[in-house]
């Protein structure tokens, strides 16, 4: 549970402005859905929060401290693809977390520590429904199973902030609903701060406690790169008063749908 504060963030690639004047505060335990048209900079924003990219201007703090300009264990990430290590079995993908954190220069824990790490891994695999696949390599798992593993692996790192970059974008609708349930359960358990980029408006409203819409407010037709995108809508969703999670795009306010479709 951590507070993320972003102030006046901007990002340019050469002449092209991608983001400008992005300011947002995420309270501890909030679930922010980031939506917007393709190429509007929401993934870039997520990469900046992650430390994979550095902002051109502005500040970014977690619990009041500026975040270092490289990825750290504070922030966990689940990508749409390439989220697990193909050369390790499912179980070893999880044991790797202990190896990297406590394994020292050999990057491997031994003896009782290893047994603990294995037991913890197996318990978590049971939890996400992958216990039977513990000894398989990720390549032989389905897309949904790979993402379950990716989420489990990220959770083991115990990040303060969980970042999700279109985590369910490549999955079948049925599997996606299962993954939503799993993610909501995990979020309810750990109450970590979550930022999720998605193309699926229904998903954004179903999962998030707040939906942020990224879009450009100024456009220059002669020079499309002149202005960057910013947060144009910040929609808090009061989960308690909402009767049920909307499941399709029908309940979503018009302008958001148009902008993000």
């Amino acid at each position, binding site marked *: 549970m951590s507070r993320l504060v972003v102030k006046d963030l901007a990002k340019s690639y050469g002449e092209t402005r991608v983001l400008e004047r992005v300011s947002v505060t995420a309270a501890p335990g909030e679930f922010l859905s980031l939506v917007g048209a393709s190429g509007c900079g929401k993934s870039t924003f997520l990469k900046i929060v992650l430390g994979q990219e550095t902002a051109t201007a502005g500040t970014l703090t977690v619990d009041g401290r500026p975040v270092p300009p490289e990825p750290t264990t504070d922030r966990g*990430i689940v990508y749409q693809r*390439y989220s697990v290590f193909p050369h390790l079995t499912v179980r070893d993908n999880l044991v790797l977390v202990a190896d990297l954190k406590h394994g020292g220069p050999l990057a491997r824990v031994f003896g009782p520590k290893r047994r603990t790490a294995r037991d913890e891994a197996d318990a978590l695999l049971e939890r996400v429904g992958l216990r039977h696949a513990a000894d398989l390599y990720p390549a032989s798992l389905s897309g949904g199973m790979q993402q379950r593993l990716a989420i489990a692996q990220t959770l083991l790192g115990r990040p303060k902030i969980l970042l999700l970059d279109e985590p369910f974008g490549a999955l079948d609708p049925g599997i996606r609903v299962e993954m939503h349930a799993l993610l909501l359960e995990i979020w309810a358990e750990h109450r970590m701060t979550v930022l999720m980029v998605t193309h699926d408006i229904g998903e954004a409203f179903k999962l998030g406690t707040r939906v942020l819409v990224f879009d450009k407010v100024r456009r220059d037709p002669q020079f499309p790169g002149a202005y960057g995108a910013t947060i144009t809508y910040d929609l808090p969703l009061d989960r308690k008063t909402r009767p049920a999670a909307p499941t399709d795009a029908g309940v979503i306010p018009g302008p958001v749908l148009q902008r993000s479709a």
Partner: protein
Amino acid sequence: MRLVNARPSKGSALALATLPFLVVGTLYVMASMDRLAVNPDDKLLPSLGQMGAAFHTLAVVPDRRSGTLILWADTTASLVRLFSGVGIAATVALTLGIALGFIPRVKATLGAFVAVVSVVPPLAVLPVLFIALGLGETAKIALIALGVGPVMIRDVAQRVAEIPAELVVKAQTLGGNTWTMILRLVLPQVMPRLIVAVRLALGPAWLFLIAAEAIASTEGLGYRIFLVRRYLSMDVILPYVVWITVLAVGTDWLLARLSAAAFPWAHPREAP
């Protein structure tokens, strides 16, 4: 059915694969019989029997002068040189390639240098090696290592650079630092590729080996071929060429099996 869709069955595929070998073999035997019928002392196309006899002598009859079994002495000498050279090249390629591909400052420092060195023709440097290192084993091993090393370094570096950025970032969010990521992410992912690079490098490595042995040596497969060339001993040269081919194919097969056994994740189709 269109040609592109007509797939041979296993049996016919085997028969088709054998066919070119049989054709070449038959043509050789016919040509050899023709020439030997005209002149029984012809040396250019010896019969299978003559070649077998020569090969047998080299393999099991001790040399009258040195007392060694020539074929095995030659094979040992050549393979030691070959594997030393390729082994050194592979070790350097692994360490330098990972550093180049993974650490931006190393790439900035050495990238252009390695790129330039890798286009220097190794055989043009051979005289330099003989002058600097003498005519012994060192120069021959150095030629092989220099000949195949730079390409392997660039190949490994390229493969390391191709590791998805997502994996590198993810490893960092799980607590990895540069060293532990090399150990647990880069090294295992690049090893199968290194084996492929070694398999591809063995072709040029044999070339450099035979070239070095032809110029200055007292034993070795390449040395023997060039020695008996003076006497037009095709009955020795041809079996030696076949023997070298068998060694090369065998090495390649072993490396492929090693990769499949050690890195099953990199060979999804062959995995059980």
